[in-house]
């Protein structure tokens, strides 16, 4: 017999299957993912890292308005989508560009928001990816609704709902977890705890033993994993998705990672933390350790490394080319999407703007 506490509280330490030196650690509860999954995951990490760095470069060149990078968090980004099936949904935040692309959404469409063309650039139904949420935690309750609707329709759908450590302080985080638990909705709430909400450290958000401990308050299992260990994340998230799919209800997963770069290019991290704090996290890099592990296991060689690098080069080139093109959003669209049928007042205002524009041109 397991007690409620044993069933709902997270592991004593974050689950880690591969440490920062690339050394394997077996876990009685969480098995090592299949070699093919890890090799595939490695390739996705390489691509994800490249997207982050290319997008940051494009901000410096004025091609993106802003880019909140997930540099160093790519294992979380990639694992969140690798454990999903086609019928499942992803609810990302503004920092989850890599996750969205890893789900198969076009990278240029993904960056529409940050480029400033429109608020969301992709069709959410195509890959079952909700629009990126910029308010914190508000998307988590939508995730519960999508999951509940799927259950009512008898569909085999699990929803992966992403948020950061700061968002766990929001009321909507609490309401989403509580609703999901009460309605037994198939949702995996996946917190990427990167230690910072812009400048505010985790200690100012909570004094809970860990964010995963919050699950027990909702009667929901909480688990925590090393957020820079793709193997551990795949195993923990995969188990959570499996439980949700089997009708066992929602789960909370906290990945402990670190935001090695500033909040965005507009932020100055030197005002609130020093390099000595960042340095050890650079050693815990998710890509470096997976490379070391796979190489030692004989699963990764220079040919595969080269293939992954080539795929990353290709996507980086697509990003550069796509974002170098000048796009002029059509001002008429400002009025086109508010209602199925525009109100008479909006029609008047659209005509006013059109008239103003035609006089500008003349």
């Amino acid at each position, binding site marked *: 017999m397991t007690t409620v506490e044993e069933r709902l509280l997270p592991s004593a330490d974050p689950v880690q299957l591969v440490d920062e030196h690339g050394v394997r650690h077996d876990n009685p509860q969480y098995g090592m993912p299949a070699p093919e999954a890890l090799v595939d995951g490695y390739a996705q990490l390489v691509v994800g890292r490249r997207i982050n760095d290319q997008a940051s470069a494009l901000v410096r060149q004025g091609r993106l308005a802003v880019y909140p990078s997930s540099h160093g968090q790519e294992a979380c980004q990639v694992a969140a989508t690798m454990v999903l099936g086609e019928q499942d949904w992803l609810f990302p935040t503004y920092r989850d560009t890599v996750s969205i692309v890893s789900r198969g959404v076009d990278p240029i469409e993904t960056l529409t928001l940050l480029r400033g063309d*429109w*608020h*969301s650039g992709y*069709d*959410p*139904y195509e890959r079952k990816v*909700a*629009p990126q949420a910029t*308010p914190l935690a*508000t998307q*988590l*309750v*939508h*995730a*519960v*609704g*999508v*999951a*509940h*609707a*799927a259950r*009512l*329709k008898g569909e085999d759908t699990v929803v992966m709902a992403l948020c950061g450590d700061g968002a766990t302080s929001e*009321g*909507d985080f609490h*309401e*989403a977890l*509580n*609703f999901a638990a*009460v309605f037994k909705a198939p949702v995996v709430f996946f917190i990427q705890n990167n230690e910072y909400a812009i400048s505010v450290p985790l200690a100012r958000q909570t004094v809970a033993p860990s964010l995963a401990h919050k699950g027990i308050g909702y009667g929901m299992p909480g688990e925590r994993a090393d957020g820079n260990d793709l193997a551990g994340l795949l195993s923990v998230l995969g188990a959570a998705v499996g439980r949700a799919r089997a009708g066992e209800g929602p789960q909370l997963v906290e990945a402990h990672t670190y935001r090695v770069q500033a909040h965005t290019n507009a932020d100055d991290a030197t005002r609130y933390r020093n390099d000595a704090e960042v340095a050890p996290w650079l050693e815990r890099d998710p890509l470096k350790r997976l490379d070391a592990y796979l190489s030692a296991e004989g699963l990764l060689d220079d040919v595969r490394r080269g293939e992954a690098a080539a795929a990353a080069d290709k996507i980086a080139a697509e990003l550069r080319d796509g974002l170098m093109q000048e796009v002029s959003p059509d001002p008429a*669209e400002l009025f*086109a*999407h*508010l*209602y*199925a049928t525009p*109100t*008479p*007042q909006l029609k008047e205002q659209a005509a006013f703007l059109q008239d103003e524009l035609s006089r500008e041109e003349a």
Partner: protein
Amino acid sequence: MPYEKLTMAQALNQALRDAMRADDTVLMFGEDVGALGGVFRITDGLTAEFGEERCFDTPLAEAGIVGMAVGLAMNGMRPVVEMQFDAFGYPAFEQVVSHVAKMRNRTRGKVTLPMVIRMPYAGGIGGVEHHCDSSESYYAHTPGLTVVAPATVSDAYTLLRRAIEFPDPVIFMEPKKLYWAKEEVDLSVEEPGIGTAVVRREGGDATLIAYGPSVPIAMEAAEAAAAEGRQLQVVDVRSIVPFDDETVCAAVRSTGRAVVVAEASGFASVSSEIVARVTERCFHSLAAPIRRVTGFDIPYPPPKLERHQLPGVDRILDAVDTLQWEDS
């Protein structure tokens, strides 16, 4: 059986029932809407008829209720949610403004949200603090929302049916003071559609413009004025967004004088918007500035003082008297 004598509460209940019978994807949920049937009994018997999956109680959290409705609507459902009282809807404000109102626009029409937020609103029932707010102006100010407020039993039924069928989110303001008003109604009537105002009473001397709980007061005032020889026309706005400029302006042009009656505080409100729009469009037909009879700019008063806040017949007639009559 087209004509039935129903209260507004019964008509709203019937509208929900008929909508749920007509479409399996219509869901009703909120606080106390299940076994209890809602604190105003608007959802009475729906769980019994349609089961727990279609009409259910949720945890007590309005942002969660509205946010969950967003997700359900994204995934093929037509949720109808109840905010138990006007002022209890405020915790859901971020969901309403940042998501309900914006989803279609931010996704360029890819994600639409056919959902209804039912909101028992306004005062006149002796309710204590936080139970009597007229919050329509907050929603009317938010682009992307549709806001309606029925004033008759018949409109309550039809507008709720139309709101549930509507392709976009509707804030449905139910004047709780009128829940027990009785009327013979023809439930087979298809009109009105959302977006139309209606002339409730003809009269050539001045126009009273009202919506929701203020319409019966305006009708009473018109009755009293007629006894004194002044014929007042009454326009029921009923669709605040979209606003029916055409009907309202045609009415005002026909009389040349107007008073807007609304229970909400007047400053920066739906009533001030109506005055501005009508003035911009009808200035040359106006014989006098448009006047307003609204609630004071104060928090809704406690029950023993609420009569001072509510627009009444005397205040309306006094306002009408100031419209620069040549014969006075």
